C-alpha cells in the first residue's frame, strides 16, 4: 500500500512540474472567465449560461489533462528507461499501474477543483442562488474524468504511440456520449443490429450516465441515479485498470 502511495505522490508532483499541465489549467481558467462574456450575451439567462459554460470548460480541460497525462505517463518512462528503476524493486506490476493512475487522478482532480472554485466565485458574484443539484453534479464530473483517465491509461498500454492512444481516447469520449443515439439507431435497424449495438454500448463507456450536469433540470434526477452512476463509474474504471494490469504484466522490457 505504501508503495502505491509513493508512486501516486511522485506522479502527482510530476504532473505539477509538467508545463503542458499548467498551460492547460491556465487556459481553462481563462475560458471560465470568458463565460462572463457569453453570459452577457444571453440577457435574462446570464447565470444559466455562465453555469453551463463553466462546468463544460472545467470538464473538457480536465479531460485534456487526464488524456495527455495518461497517454504519456507510462510510455515516456518506458522510452527514457526510467521505468527500470522502479520495476527492478520488489514491486508488483499492478501496484505500479494503480499508483500512476491514482497520482494522475489526484492531479486532474486538483486542476478541476481550481477551475470550479474560480467558476463558482464568478457565479456567486453574479448573484447565483446555490442549487444542490449543481453541487451533486460536480462529483459526477469527477467520476467521468476518472473513467476517462483509466481508459486513456489502457489505450496508452494497448497502442504503442502516444498520438494513437490520444485519438482513441478522444474517440471513446465521443462515442461514450453517443451511446443513447447508437441504441436508438440500432433499435430501428433490425434485431441483429440491436444486439450488436447493445454489445458495442456495453464495451463503450456510458458517459451519458455520468453526465449529471446536463440533466439537473430533468424529472427523476436525484440520489438514486447518482448512486447508480457512481457504481457504474467505479466498476468500469476497475475493469479498465484490471485490463491495464493484464497488459502491463505481459510487457517485456
Amino acid at each position, binding site marked *: 500500500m505504501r508503495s502505491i502511495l509513493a508512486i501516486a505522490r511522485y506522479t502527482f508532483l510530476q504532473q505539477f512540474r509538467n508545463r503542458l499541465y499548467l498551460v492547460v489549467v491556465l487556459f481553462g481558467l481563462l475560458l471560465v472567465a470568458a463565460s462572463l462574456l457569453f453570459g452577457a450575451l444571453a440577457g435574462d439567462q446570464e447565470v444559466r449560461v455562465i453555469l453551463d459554460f463553466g462546468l463544460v470548460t472545467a470538464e473538457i480541460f480536465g479531460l485534456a489533462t487526464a488524456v495527455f497525462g495518461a497517454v504519456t505517463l507510462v510510455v515516456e518512462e518506458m522510452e527514457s528507461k526510467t521505468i527500470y528503476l522502479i520495476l527492478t524493486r520488489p514491486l508488483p506490476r499492478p501496484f505500479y499501474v494503480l499508483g500512476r493512475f491514482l497520482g494522475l487522478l489526484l492531479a486532474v482532480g486538483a486542476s478541476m477543483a481550481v477551475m470550479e472554485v474560480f467558476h463558482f466565485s464568478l457565479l456567486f458574484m453574479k448573484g447565483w442562488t446555490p442549487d444542490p443539484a449543481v453541487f451533486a453534479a460536480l462529483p459526477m464530473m469527477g467520476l467521468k474524468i476518472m473513467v476517462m483517465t483509466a481508459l486513456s491509461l489502457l489505450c496508452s498500454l494497448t497502442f504503442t504511440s502516444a498520438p494513437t492512444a490520444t485519438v482513441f481516447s478522444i474517440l471513446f469520449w465521443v462515442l461514450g456520449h453517443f451511446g443513447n443515439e447508437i441504441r436508438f439507431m440500432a433499435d430501428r435497424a433490425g434485431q441483429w443490429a440491436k444486439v450488436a449495438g447493445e454489445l458495442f454500448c456495453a464495451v463503450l463507456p*456510458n458517459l451519458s450516465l455520468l453526465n449529471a450536469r*446536463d440533466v439537473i433540470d430533468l424529472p*427523476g434526477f436525484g440520489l438514486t441515479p447518482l448512486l447508480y452512476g457512481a457504481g457504474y463509474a467505479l466498476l468500469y474504471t476497475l*475493469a479498465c485498470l484490471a485490463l491495464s494490469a*493484464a497488459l502491463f504484466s505481459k510487457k517485456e522490457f
Partner: protein
Amino acid sequence: MPLSRRSDFWGWVLGSLFLLLGAWFISRKPYPQFPPFERPLMELYAAQDMGMVLNGARRLGADLALIQLMQYYGSAENANPHHPRGRRRKTVEKPHDEDGHEEHVHLHLGSEGTADATNRPFQSFPQLLEYTLRGGSLDPHFHFLFLFGSGALAFNLNRGDEAMTALEFGLRGDPSFWRYRMYQGGIAYRKIRKSKKPSPT
C-alpha cells in the same frame, strides 16, 4: 512468457470482464436523460450542434442556440426577409398582397409590437421558428427558449401557427410545464378575438 505471468494475465482479463458485465448491468437502470438527438435542425449550425451533442454538452448547446436566436432576432437585416445580408430560408417566397403586388415590409426593430394592429402575419425573421426548434431539440427542458420564441412569433409577428408549433415541441419535452398551456390559451384567445372583431368598413 512464464506460466505464472500467463495465468496472472488471464486472471486480470477475466476479472475485468466480470467488472464490465457488472457495469453494463448497472447502466441498464433507468436514468434521467435527454431523448436521442435525431438530426441537427439547421444546416448552418449542424457542426456546432453535433459537437455539443458528442461532448455531452446539450445544455450548453441550447444556451448558445438561444444566444444565436437573440442575435438573429436582434439583427435589422433579418427583419426584412428580402434584405441581401439577411439570413433566410433558401426557398423563401416573396409575399404578395391580394392585388398581386409584392408586399413591402418596413419593419424596424422594436416596432414589431404594432403587429397587434393587424391580422396579417409579418414575414420578417422568417427563420425564427427554426432557431427556436433548434435550441429545443438540444435541450427540450429549456422553458425560457420556447416561451421567448413562441411569444415573439405570436405576439410580435402575428405568426400564431408557428408559435403553436414551437409550444407543442416544448410540451413534448416537458408536458408538466403549465406556462406552455397558458401561452397556447393566450394565442388561441387572441386569434378568436380577432376573428370576431368587425372589419372596418
